[in-house]
């Protein structure tokens, strides 16, 4: 029996039954009945033909599918018949499902989609860590000798590899071009399990000092700069004025770290110093990644590393005491920082969908009342209850499917925005950010969500609608019936949950807004208006002598200060964290010393950036090479490490960089001459602890040039460029940017998740207002009769108005109480994320409650007004 024969089969059965009926009728006539009576008797004998037909279809084996088709067809017809309801419901669902699909595509791209390498689950990141007294957890790379010890654990790791970032300039042609580049160890590229598109990876000899002038090109650079030259291998590329032989090209779509397209890879040859025992403490800046042996879990690897760390701490206490190793899935290491915003967003968007479901369920309930008669008739002609429920559920799922399809369209558009946002702000640094789209996971998720949604909002109304007393429904006059109270309870229950959900979202959004406002008002410690900042990177092949570097910047500052429109100019090299020792205080255990960011600046930088002096003096021209080494410290540094004394005139000595362990020859003692205001950088949550030293005493090859202007800041950039070229006609000036823009980007990374949650909360508020409005309108319309009688008996309008409002308020308040409890229990999730408020901030909770109650009152006011303006005569006459 094939499905395409169904139609023929049907006609066949019809004919068969008809002939049976005819024969029966004939027989009855032979028994002496009148023709009319005979026909009735025949029908009685045959019974319910619809049922027979259905049961016979069952015997054909296609009944299930046939029923489904019929139900779907019927559902579409029923939905088309009430376009108002259908439009409202599908749009509501489209919003809910679409928003969920969009956020889920973020989750899918960033967390669920594996890193784009073979066997990505074997890839782990390695780091050294310690608990720094007063500073908390510190994580760094791994030092060279430690890496060798780790790599010797062959039963755990297949390969252990490491790299450093390298900022190469391609020095061919007139203008050097900077390119994203990596110095990679022998195993670094093979670690990923990919093959070069052309040529080969590095060999062991090439990772030795002196043999390391070979390069592998990234696919994009090969295409853009060399026009995808097929004969590129063996050619030379000049990087920082040194020739490198090109030995390979990476495949297209190869991404290094989270989602980065690297231009050039060169070998990383460690120096004998870095490989010696001394290097164990001073080469901790090696970014380390490894591939686990098949079958080895991260947990096992971590256990092995714990043992190793304990052994190394005994064998090499100077370098390794207090340090542990951390093994982490590479993928998790890349998305860890965005996990919490994602969780908050997913939760918020799920709430919106639940509220949407509540609304649609309410619409369906109201509709089921209208359709009571239809359902009763279906029951009367033999439909079982489960059959009716299936039919109604099919209708809900069809509704959800239409909404879901629309929602996917919304999600598609949403994904374009999300991709832009995630790639626009570099600080997000998440895997697969450039490929946020509707992949199979999202489609599957949306499908499941749609079906589930259809069942969630459809089941209760369907069950209630099918529980109909036939006689009562067919006689129905509109008066309150017994089954009505069940519906009312469900309706109120739905609105209560909607309100509770909306309140949770509102408080969450409120907390985020207060966090954002708090962070907006945070004192950045600088005055960013009218400041332009740009990067100047002196190539070491030209400026190898420190005096040359200092000379260049000194000349540059002189010229720039003289430019028209310039108020102040300064340079700064934002610091890496260093250990330091306040002199005269008891020495700390090595590695437990205080830390601060060491910034190398020019005297004029404080004026250019607008950093105010709090005590002591500014840097001066006299603080030059050969003069007493001096330093300024920030207020936080002063409070934290000279708690009860005046630090001015005291000394501190800088020990080593926290991250790498390197000590770059600055461990002479510095005299503190001044205290300046705190600054905040990317981490807006906490002020930085800073030390400032003059560039004249600490030569630097790289700096940001900050220029404060009296005119539009960007207008001075060309003349600054000219000033630079006047000193060195090959020196580029990179990335001029308004300081305000830079700050806006920092805030942008914060604003983005917050804006989303805020949008979701507003949606939730609107949807629940619609929900309250719908339920109150419905209640009023059902009770017109009752209200009219009351009014006819002398109740005054105000009393009625108040009564209806009170009913709306009651429902709202129950929802509020539940919502507050839920919000409080969920506040833990927000605790790490908020700033300036507690996650249980009473003011925010109160404000959210007031907003919600006001909206709920407004939503019940219109129906209440309508109820109070009922004309009793007319209402009663309409009965």
């Amino acid at each position, binding site marked *: 029996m094939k499905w395409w024969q169904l139609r023929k089969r049907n006609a066949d*059965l019809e004919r*068969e*039954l008809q*002939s049976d009926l005819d024969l029966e009728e004939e027989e009855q006539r032979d028994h002496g009945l009148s023709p009319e009576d005979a026909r009735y008797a025949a029908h009685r004998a*045959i*019974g319910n033909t619809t*049922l*027979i037909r259905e*049961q016979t279809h069952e015997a054909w084996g296609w009944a299930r599918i046939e029923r489904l088709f019929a139900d779907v067809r019927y559902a579409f017809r029923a939905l088309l018949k009430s376009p108002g309801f259908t439009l409202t419901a599908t749009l509501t669902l489209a919003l809910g499902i679409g928003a969920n699909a969009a956020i889920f595509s973020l989750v899918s791209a960033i967390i669920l989609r594996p890193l784009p390498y073979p066997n990505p689950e074997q890839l782990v990141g390695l780091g050294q860590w310690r608990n720094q007294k007063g500073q908390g957890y510190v994580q760094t790379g791994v030092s060279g000798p430690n890496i060798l010890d780790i790599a010797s654990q062959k039963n755990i790791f297949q390969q252990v590899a490491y790299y450093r970032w390298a900022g190469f300039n391609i020095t061919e042609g007139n203008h050097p071009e900077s390119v994203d580049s990596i110095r990679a160890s022998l195993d670094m590229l093979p670690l990923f399990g990919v093959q070069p598109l052309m040529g080969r990876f590095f060999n062991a000899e090439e990772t030795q000092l002196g043999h390391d002038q070979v390069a592998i090109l990234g696919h994009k650079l090969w295409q853009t700069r060399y026009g995808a030259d097929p004969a590129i291998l063996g050619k030379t590329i000049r990087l920082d004025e040194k020739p490198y032989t090109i030995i390979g090209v990476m495949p297209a779509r190869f991404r290094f770290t989270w989602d980065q397209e690297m231009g050039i890879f060169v070998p990383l040859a460690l120096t004998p110093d870095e490989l010696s025992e001394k290097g164990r403490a001073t080469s901790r800046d090696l970014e380390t990644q490894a591939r686990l042996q098949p079958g080895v879990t991260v947990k096992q690897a971590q256990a092995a590393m714990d043992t190793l760390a304990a052994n190394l701490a005994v064998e090499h206490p100077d370098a390794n005491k207090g340090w542990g190793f951390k093994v982490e899935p590479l993928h998790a290491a890349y998305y860890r920082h965005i996990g919490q915003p994602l969780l908050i967003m997913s939760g918020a968007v799920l709430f919106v969908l639940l509220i949407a479901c509540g609304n649609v369920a309410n619409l369906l309930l109201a509709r089921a009342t209208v359709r009571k008669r239809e359902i009763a008739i279906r029951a009367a002609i033999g439909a079982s209850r489960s059959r009716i429920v299936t039919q109604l559920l099919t209708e809900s799922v069809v509704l959800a499917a239409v909404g879901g399809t629309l929602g996917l369209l919304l999600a598609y558009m949403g994904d374009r925005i999300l991709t832009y946002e995630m790639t626009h702000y570099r600080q997000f640094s998440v895997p697969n950010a450039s490929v946020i789209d509707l992949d199979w996971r999202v489609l599957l998720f949306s499908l499941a969500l749609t079906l589930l949604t259809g069942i969630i909002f459809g089941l209760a109304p369907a069950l209630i609608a099918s529980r109909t007393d036939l006689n009562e429904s067919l006689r129905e006059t509109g008066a309150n019936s017994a089954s009505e109270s069940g519906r009312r309870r469900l309706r109120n229950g739905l609105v209560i949950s909607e309100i509770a959900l909306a309140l949770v979202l509102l408080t969450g959004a409120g907390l985020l807004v207060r966090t954002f406002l708090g962070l907006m008002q945070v004192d950045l410690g600088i005055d960013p208006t009218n400041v332009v900042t740009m990067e100047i990177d002196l190539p070491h092949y030209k400026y190898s002598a420190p005096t040359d570097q200092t000379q260049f910047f000194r000349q540059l500052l002189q010229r720039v200060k003289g430019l028209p429109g310039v108020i102040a100019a300064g340079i700064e090299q934002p610091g890496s964290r260093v250990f330091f020792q306040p002199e005269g205080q008891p020495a700390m255990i090595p590695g437990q010393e205080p830390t601060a960011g060491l910034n190398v600046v020019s005297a004029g930088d404080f004026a250019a950036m607008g950093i105010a002096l709090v005590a002591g003096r500014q840097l001066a021209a006299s603080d030059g090479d050969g003069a007493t080494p001096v330093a300024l410290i920030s207020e936080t540094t002063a409070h934290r490490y000279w708690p009860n004394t005046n630090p001015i005139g005291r000394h501190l000595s800088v020990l080593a960089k926290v991250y790498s362990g390197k000590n770059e020859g600055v461990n002479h003692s510095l005299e503190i001459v001044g205290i300046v205001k705190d600054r905040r950088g990317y981490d807006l949550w906490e002020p930085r602890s800073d030390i400032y030293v003059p560039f004249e005493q600490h030569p630097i090859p790289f700096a940001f040039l900050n220029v404060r202007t009296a005119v539009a800041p960007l207008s001075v950039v060309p003349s600054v460029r000219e000033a630079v070229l006047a000193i060195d006609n090959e020196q580029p000036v990179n990335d001029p940017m308004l300081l305000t823009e830079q700050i806006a980007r920092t805030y942008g990374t914060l604003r983005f998740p917050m804006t989303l949650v805020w949008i979701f909360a507003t949606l939730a508020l609107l949807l629940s207002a619609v929900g309250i409005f719908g339920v109150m309108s419905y209640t009023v319309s059902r009770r017109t009769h009752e209200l009219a009688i009351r009014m006819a008996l002398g109740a005054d309008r105000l009393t009625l108005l108040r009564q209806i409002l009170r009913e709306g308020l009651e429902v709202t308040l129950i929802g509020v109480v539940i919502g507050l409890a839920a919000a409080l229990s969920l506040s833990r999730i927000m605790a790490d994320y908020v700033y300036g408020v507690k996650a249980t901030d009473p003011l925010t909770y109160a404000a959210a409650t007031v907003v919600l109650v006001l909206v709920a009152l407004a939503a019940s006011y219109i129906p209440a007004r309508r109820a109070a303006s009922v004309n009793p005569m007319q209402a009663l006459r309409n009965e």
Partner: protein
Amino acid sequence: MTNTRQSAGILQGTLDMLILRTLLYGAAHGHQIGKHIQRTTNDFLQLQHGSLYPALHRLERRGWVSAKWETAPDRNREFKYYRLTEKGRKQLLVEESQWKQMAEAVARVMWPAAEES
């Protein structure tokens, strides 16, 4: 629809057997089959169409009967005649012996004395 006569209560397998047995006499259409069973049992088994037609179609799907529209010999009208197939004949034997076994088993439990004597 409750009545004292045995109707839908008969086991599904039994109904199949009765239909097959009826068709052993020759081709018949649905109405005839129903009437035959009803008359032969002196109206004790009154078949409902609700079970007769689904059963006929089920038997056809299993290949135990075949169906064809044919003109009735006594009137100028086509009816859907069901015929026993070879497969159906074998099935009838199987069902018959199963039924016998069942009946004997029930009898042994219900009237053990008769067994002893």
